[in-house]
């Protein structure tokens, strides 16, 4: 029953998010805005054992299951990809790797730099 209550919370937040996206015309999906709505609710309620927590803990370990369907859709595009495979495959893999390196390395370096600056400031 707790998971059903929790699912109601999740779907309710998604509905609020979808409505916000629709009304504002923001270029972000309603579900992502729904995540912000739920985070706000959790911050206001100041509890860490709500039914929303129970539903999230039931669903999120199986998040990969939910991406199988869009993944299978890739199969339908096999012929399009095969026709232009070199720019598609190489550019996709290389650009993905460059993006990953740019974010990971800069986030880690900046975190270390701010930590050093904050702790070093007091000592000096």
């Amino acid at each position, binding site marked *: 029953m707790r998971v059903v209550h929790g699912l109601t919370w999740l779907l309710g937040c998604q509905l609020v998010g979808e409505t916000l996206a629709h009304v504002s015309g923001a270029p972000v999906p309603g579900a992502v805005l729904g995540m*912000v709505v739920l985070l706000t609710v959790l911050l206001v309620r100041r509890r860490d054992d709500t039914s929303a927590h129970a539903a999230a803990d039931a669903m999120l370990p199986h998040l990969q299951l939910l991406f199988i369907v869009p993944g299978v859709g890739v199969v339908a595009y096999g012929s399009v990809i095969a026709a232009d495979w070199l720019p598609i495959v190489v550019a996709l893999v290389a*650009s993905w790797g460059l993006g990953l390196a740019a974010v990971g390395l800069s986030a880690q370096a900046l975190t270390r730099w701010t930590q050093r600056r904050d702790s070093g400031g007091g000592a000096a």
Partner: protein
Amino acid sequence: MRWFVEQPLTWLVATLLAYRLGVWLLDRTRLSVAQPVLVAVVLLGAALLVLDVDIATYAEGTAVLTFLLGPATVALAVPLHRQLHRLRGFALPMTVALVLGVLVSVGSAILLVQLLGGSEELARTMAPKATTTPVSLALSAEIGGIPALSAVLTITAGILGAVAGPWVLDRLRVREPRSRGVAIGGVSHGIGTARALAEDPVEGAFSGLSMGLTALLTSLLIPLVVALLL
């Protein structure tokens, strides 16, 4: 036999079984390439081709799973709420890293496609591939790409992150868990986040946050990068 393979319920059950098989294989082999999403996509894709079943039949049978993606995205607020205290001192590094990441993701996609002889339309189609699928579809339409193909490239970028993201970050010596999560969510959206959650709760929480911020930042920056490069 034809009735059986064209019945929507068959494909829902097949998807759940393929997922179980993928989870079992990952537990057994501990090979990171054996991600359940990849194992299931390969098996089901091959089954659809061999049995000559239309993708629309498959999509109809599995609509309930597609529907659950919405509340599952909302649910990412929960791990984030648990890790929110770790945002202290990280908001600025994260924001700078993600702006840089969006510029690199979009810019390198456009330049590499052109360098390798792809059309301008393909460059525009590739540009939004790091954002979560609904955003990628919308941005592709806005900048003159082919939205359906953008969705395919986006999902492939996600699967790359689930399979190889943590491995590449290990090679680059990115060990700080928040930075790892932000990197995976920033280039491989929800599919990468699913893997990050399985690796480490901090990584997973920041990957989910990064997915949302990347969608927002890409929406804002992609018209500028496209105008500069194309």
